[in-house]
């Protein structure tokens, strides 16, 4: 039978973000895969050059909705290094706490997505329900579920109170108990083991060769973790294990992530026990002296890197961002080989891709030009109903019916 090429994406029901894969099939078996990216490029690197450091920090935080703290911390670490700022230890600890909470939220999100991609939607419901515990914790500490806005150049913007730390420990207990259950599911549930074993195989040699990082690399026994190898913020004070696995497949990637969750809880307990008192910020200059720095950060998906070059003004000369997914994509083509077409979604999902992170460029014209107003929740609700009515969708009858049932 002749080979068939199937385009998947950039818009496709099986994918959550725009990316395009051209898959060459022989029957149901994948022979090769070609990736086309760039659909989410928003011009963030270029835009940073036209903004002050503090504006650029907020922009960089929006590179990704999930790893927002990762990007902003990675960026300001570089800026602080160039400016020679000594960030207070308490601020370093707070950054580390948010960093690990972000990893918990990301890994639980992934576990749910992975469950969904293999038709195990109970796992999705469970994992995402439990994820609300960490989302509530993040919202309580920072005011936001994502894009926390905790960082500022020279420290953090909000302190964490003793009561909040106590609540944080309670949340860790709940999450740890739930994660133990997921470990049990991952090691005993036959459906899950059979569905994931051998799928998306990436040998250790290929993982090293193609530069796989984060949980994707660690599941092929690539023993690297920036938190241990090139410690930043408070990681040098923490005792933790880097989880690796030798399954080399999607099953291994699952085990690594649930294993990492357990390490997160232990790290947060250590952070709460050791957090020093003191100031949470030092004054940062508006103008950053000329210089350059290269910063690395272990984001939930793997090593995130930012390079910053300063020219002595209040705006950076160059900001270069390399998000983890870009480094892992080369491995995806290899993982696809000899798998079935039906495995495509779970193999892609197993690197926990984030294409919004990966792409960073082009232009929004005149975003602030129009009139602005602050409207109430009721007015917003009314406006949305009217918008749908204009599109020919009227839910009035349905709403009344539901209301009748509820009362």
């Amino acid at each position, binding site marked *: 039978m002749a080979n068939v090429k199937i385009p998947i994406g950039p818009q496709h029901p099986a994918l959550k973000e725009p990316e395009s894969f051209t898959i060459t099939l022989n029957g149901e078996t994948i022979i090769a895969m070609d990736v086309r990216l760039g659909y989410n490029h928003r011009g963030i690197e270029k835009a940073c050059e036209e903004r002050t450091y503090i504006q650029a920090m907020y922009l960089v935080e929006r590179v990704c909705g999930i790893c927002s703290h990762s990007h902003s911390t990675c960026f300001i670490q570089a800026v602080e290094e160039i400016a020679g700022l000594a960030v207070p230890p308490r601020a370093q600890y707070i950054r580390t706490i948010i960093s690990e909470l972000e990893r918990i939220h990301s890994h639980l999100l992934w576990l749910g997505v992975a469950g969904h991609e293999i038709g195990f939607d109970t796992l999705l419901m469970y994992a995402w329900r439990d994820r609300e515990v960490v989302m509530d914790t993040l919202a309580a500490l920072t005011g936001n579920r994502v894009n926390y806005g905790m960082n500022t150049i020279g420290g953090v913007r909000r302190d964490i109170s003793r009561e909040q730390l106590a609540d944080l420990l309670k949340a860790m207990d709940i999450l740890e108990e739930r994660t133990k259950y997921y470990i049990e599911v991952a090691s005993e549930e036959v459906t899950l083991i059979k569905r994931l074993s051998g799928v998306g195989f990436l040998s250790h040699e290929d993982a090293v060769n193609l530069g796989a990082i984060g949980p994707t690399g660690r599941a092929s026994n690539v023993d690297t973790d920036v938190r241990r190898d090139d410690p930043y913020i408070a990681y040098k004070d923490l005792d933790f294990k880097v989880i690796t696995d030798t399954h080399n497949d999607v099953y291994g990637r699952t085990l690594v992530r649930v294993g990492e969750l357990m390490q997160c809880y232990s790290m947060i307990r250590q952070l709460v026990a050791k957090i020093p008192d003191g100031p949470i910020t030092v004054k940062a200059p508006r103008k950053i002296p000329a210089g350059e720095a290269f910063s690395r950060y272990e984001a939930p998906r793997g090593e995130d890197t930012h*390079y910053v070059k300063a020219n002595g003004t209040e705006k950076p000369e160059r900001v270069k961002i390399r998000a983890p997914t870009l480094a892992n994509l080369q491995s995806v083509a290899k993982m696809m080989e000899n798998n079935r077409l039906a495995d495509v979604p779970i193999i892609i999902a197993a690197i926990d891709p984030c294409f919004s992170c990966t792409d960073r460029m082009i232009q929004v014209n005149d975003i602030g030009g129009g009139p602005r107003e602050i409207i109430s929740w009721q007015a917003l609700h009314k406006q949305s109903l009217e918008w749908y009515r204009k599109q020919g969708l009227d839910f009035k009858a349905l709403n009344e019916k539901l209301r009748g049932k509820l009362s």
Partner: protein
Amino acid sequence: MTNEEKTKKELSERFGFSTEQIRVTRARRIFLEVPYAQFRQVFEHVVNGMEFRHLCTITGLDDGDTLAFIYHLAHADGAVLNLQTRVPKANPVLQTISDIFPGGLIYERELVDLLGARVEGLPEGNRYPLPEGWPAGQHPLLKDWKAEMLDGVYPKKEVKSNG
């Protein structure tokens, strides 16, 4: 002797770089600029002989008359060697390193699209990250590039939306 000092010593002994050329900016961070003629030789030695086996990424910079490229190479012990080289902007040709790091391909495609570098030996494939139909000769990360340069050139036609 720390690992950074060892790296510094080996590089200066082997290639004759002065100790001022090799800057250790902090623990685990080494910066070195080499002339392009010597780049490949140093790069190969650093990767194969000195075990900087992970290419974090490649940064491209518009530096006036030249384009600068920084290859960020990491060692398993956490050290990063930032190996910089430059080529004239008028003729920005460099050789691919994707034969050594297959994963480096996408970083080189980025240099091609965003800075207009010409990478010799880069296998054929999809461009990254700019869209098909992007006007030739426009490279957004060049300092003199402005978004207005796209006016009337890109996108060529309005696509009607259905939503």
